[in-house]
């Protein structure tokens, strides 16, 4: 079906996708609900498992036997070893629990599906629905409307003879659907045919949007969850006196309060998601009528106007949208795509609950290498967060590309999703059972801050990349490739979050990981070196990220390659490349001076013992700090695509800095800074170079984000026409008839890009091999 001409001509000029129908969003929400129900059920069933006396005895005995106390100053390998031993010891008990919980979850889902199958027959019988046999005039008119709505096969039309409401509903299962019209509505068939048609077309729109089965499954899933999972927990809590003795809420190992809180939050979240699905489907059906049947849009609006206002709270959280929202859906269907803050919180909460409860089960599978479980949990979380953000950004742009709200994209959505995620991460099966009641709220808040910062950066990059893709022709390939690049790079902050969860106190301290080598005799080098290698626990773990180097390169490579296809110049790309390279050369020159300065400032005894490591750390510090300067310059000069351009400059800076490291070693050798070197080109390995590149790039990107903000702030303050701004409309790229200087500049730039990609690819592969062992073999 093509869009009606009236719609294509009349929508607001902001519509970048004219002629495209509104896209139903119920499927994504249903997937979130399914995941949230599963995760919430796992949490509650885990508690119920431990309420079975024999299971409780078995599990707690095993837990007491297997508990290993890890010293506060344990290193990561020590922690990993202890965790592995504990996991192996607990394996049989955890598998028993997993089997029990899995069976209960399977039963719950099967019951929900069974109810879904029998529900249509139950509705028909309970409400005494009848067919329209003999009502020839109505039957003929309904057939006409079905044909107009292009619904094939036609649904079964039924009458609810016992209802005075002027409405209707669709129900059914497995593609056998019925539309029930209430007796109150039929009176309008005679009195107000337009209103009758609008309501019927709305119901047919549900079939067109394919949301009927999903909605019924949503309702049966919710009801099954309440009966099978939530009510037994409530009953046990009441039975154990958990509710009647408030004094005991805060005492004892298995306090009732976390359980009650978890139960309330999970149930409320599921209820809100359920209502969200119902509201969305109604709005989408309204939008579909407005789009495909503009003649009925006025009548539909008039129907809404007859309805009394529901109030904000009911409209926002209830099962049906408010009058204003429904009118807006008919008038501007694409505004439905914008992610509301409450939706963001709900989605974040669902993702948090799912991943937080995925972890313990992964630990069962990877009992020998618990870090692998952490890694996979982090990866799942990262990919889910990235996809949520990408969908939110895409929807915001799709709804209104030129007026897409940056505040919503860069602040509101990350804030909402990260807040939900932070709460969801606290709602674990371990927490609710009271086995581990040592929830570190301070660390949880800190983790939320880290998550928020990472998500703001990612949202900014996604917005830039998607905008570029949209300008270049909006190919599906481009969108997907951009999304894939974003997913690859998300591992770093999820690893951060997860490991922080395991060892939260370490988050707060900058721990020089080679403190023994940072002796006082090294003077000012000590301070500088501490910058380069001082790390808190999460950053140390992130240094072993499998895809960080690859991801940070893809951050600019993918948008650059996609833009090349459009045949236009990437505004600011050359400047970013040059600024990054210039920064790298500056670092290189400082690096060459470092051994000379050391030789004149430090005694030979100090330089002879482990000075090489201190010198490398100092050099890395210079390179990392230079990222702030370069990012500030690039972000300040650019007027768009800042996250991509900063990533380009960071890659260029890191690569040239790595070459500078070789120069520094060569100078150190030639001036014999350690007293035992000869003037020769330094010997090194790919592994060492890749590790150094990884360190510079990871820490450099973290500081580059800060530099970017500084640059934007300075540019805002001082840009009054005097500072050159990069062209906002990229010119066509063509070498035919271009000056030789332009061609030469392009060739050099492209060669440099190829060099950067080659270096990054080599380093990524090398780091991949080195880091794999850290996560998967306990090495």
């Amino acid at each position: 079906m093509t869009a009606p001409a009236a719609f294509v001509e009349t929508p607001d000029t902001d519509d970048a996708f004219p002629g495209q129908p509104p896209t139903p969003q119920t499927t994504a929400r249903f997937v979130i609900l399914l995941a949230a129900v599963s995760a919430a059920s796992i949490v509650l069933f885990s508690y119920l498992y431990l309420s079975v006396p024999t299971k409780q005895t078995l599990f707690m005995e095993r837990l007491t036997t297997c508990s290993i106390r890890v010293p506060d100053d344990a290193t990561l390998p020590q922690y990993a070893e202890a965790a592995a031993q504990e996991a192996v010891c607990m394996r049989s008990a955890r598998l028993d629990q997993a089997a029990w919980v899995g069976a209960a979850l399977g039963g719950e889902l099967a019951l929900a599906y069974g109810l879904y199958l029998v529900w249509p027959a139950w509705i028909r019988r309970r409400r005494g629905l009848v067919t329209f046999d003999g009502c020839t005039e109505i039957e003929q008119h309904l057939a006409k409307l079905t044909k107009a709505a292009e619904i094939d096969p036609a649904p079964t039309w039924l009458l609810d003879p016992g209802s005075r409401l002027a409405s209707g509903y669709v129900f059914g299962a497995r593609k056998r659907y019925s539309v029930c019209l209430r007796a109150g509505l039929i009176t309008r068939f005679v009195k107000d045919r337009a209103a009758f048609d609008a309501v019927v077309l709305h119901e047919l729109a549900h079939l067109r949007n394919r949301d009927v089965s999903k909605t019924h499954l949503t309702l049966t899933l919710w009801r099954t969850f309440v009966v099978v999972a939530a009510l037994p927990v409530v009953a046990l809590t009441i039975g154990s006196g958990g509710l009647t003795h408030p004094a005991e809420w805060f005492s004892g190992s298995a306090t009732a309060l976390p359980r009650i809180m978890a139960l309330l939050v999970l149930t409320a979240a599921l209820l809100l998601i359920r209502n969200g699905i119902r509201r969305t489907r109604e709005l989408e059906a309204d939008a579909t009528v407005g789009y495909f049947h503009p003649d009925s849009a006025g009548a539909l609006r008039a129907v809404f106007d007859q309805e009394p206002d529901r109030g904000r709270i009911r409209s926002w959280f209830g099962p049906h949208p408010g009058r204003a929202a429904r009118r807006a859906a008919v008038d501007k269907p694409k505004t439905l795509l914008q992610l509301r803050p409450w939706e963001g919180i709900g989605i974040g909460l669902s993702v948090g609950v799912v991943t937080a409860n995925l972890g313990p089960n992964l630990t069962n599978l990877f009992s020998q290498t618990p870090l692998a479980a952490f890694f996979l949990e982090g990866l799942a979380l990262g990919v889910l967060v990235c996809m949520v953000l990408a969908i939110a950004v895409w929807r915001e742009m799709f709804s209104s590309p030129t007026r897409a709200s940056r505040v919503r994209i860069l602040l509101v959505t990350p804030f909402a999703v990260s807040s939900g995620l932070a709460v969801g991460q606290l709602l674990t099966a371990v927490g609710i059972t009271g086995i581990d009641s040592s929830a570190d709220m301070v660390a949880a808040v800190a983790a939320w801050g880290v998550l928020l910062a990472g998500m703001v950066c990612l949202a900014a990059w996604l917005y830039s990349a998607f905008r570029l893709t949209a300008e270049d022709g909006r190919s599906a390939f481009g969108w997907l490739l951009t999304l894939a690049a974003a997913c690859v790079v998300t591992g770093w902050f999820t690893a951060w979050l997860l490991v922080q969860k395991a060892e939260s106190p370490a988050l707060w301290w900058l721990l020089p990981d080679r403190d023994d080598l940072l002796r006082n005799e090294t003077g000012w080098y000590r301070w500088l070196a501490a910058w380069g290698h001082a790390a808190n626990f999460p950053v140390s773990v992130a240094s072993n990220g499998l895809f960080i180097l690859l991801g940070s390169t893809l951050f600019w490579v993918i948008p650059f390659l996609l833009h090349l296809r459009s045949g236009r110049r990437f505004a600011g790309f050359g400047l970013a490349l040059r600024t990054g390279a210039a920064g790298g050369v500056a670092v290189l020159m400082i690096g060459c001076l470092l051994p000379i300065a050391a030789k004149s400032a430090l005694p030979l005894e100090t330089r002879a013992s482990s000075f090489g490591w201190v010198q490398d750390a100092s050099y890395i510090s210079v390179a990392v700090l230079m990222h702030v300067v370069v990012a500030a310059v690039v972000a300040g000069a650019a007027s768009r695509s800042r996250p991509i351009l900063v990533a380009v400059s960071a890659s260029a800076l890191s690569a040239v800095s790595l070459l500078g490291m070789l120069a520094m070693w060569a100078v150190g050798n030639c001036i014999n800074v350690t007293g035992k070197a000869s003037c020769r080109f330094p010997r090194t390995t790919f592994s060492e170079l890749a590790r150094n590149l990884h360190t510079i790039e990871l820490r450099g990107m973290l500081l580059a984000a800060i530099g970017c903000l500084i640059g934007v702030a300075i540019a805002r303050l001082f840009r009054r026409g005097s500072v050159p701004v990069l062209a906002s409309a990229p010119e066509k790229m063509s070498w035919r008839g271009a000056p030789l200087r332009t061609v030469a500049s392009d060739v050099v730039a492209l060669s440099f890009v190829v060099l950067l990609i080659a270096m990054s690819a080599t380093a990524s592969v090398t780091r991949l091999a080195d880091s794999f062992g850290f996560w998967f073999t306990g090495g």
Partner: protein
Amino acid sequence: MNRKTHDAQAEPVAAVAAILIEAAAPAELPMFPALARAYANSVVMRRGRDRPSPVDFGIEDAEHLLTPVLWQAAVDVVAYFGTVAASRGLALTADRVRAMLRRPAADTPSVTAAPAVTLTKEEWGHVHGIVTEVLQKSGMPHEEARQKADSVVAKGYLSDDGA
């Protein structure tokens, strides 16, 4: 009451109800065949708040439906007709009811050849009273209920009166 008896009673009631609806609530006539089947199977109009279904359109605007009220009136009228017919030694059938109200069935070319039951002026007045009372019980103002009852009995009453 067995099913056969129930059906036998339902048909005259449906016949009377159709006439009542045609006169008093023509907007509800298109769905009458379906409603008649439902009411014949003892489906009743839900009392109190008519709760929307979880998957409903979402509008709680309710229409004032006369069909259930008129159906109840038809039940009472048919019961009265039954009494009158029995007093004259005749059984009450749908055709006989239609004949009493001077409304032939749509698919029958003429009124049944069976002897008709003719109502007196007083008996028509009683029918009028039944309809008025039921409509008033449903919340309709007295004057409006009376007018609707007038239109219901007008044809039969005038015919019989003129006979």
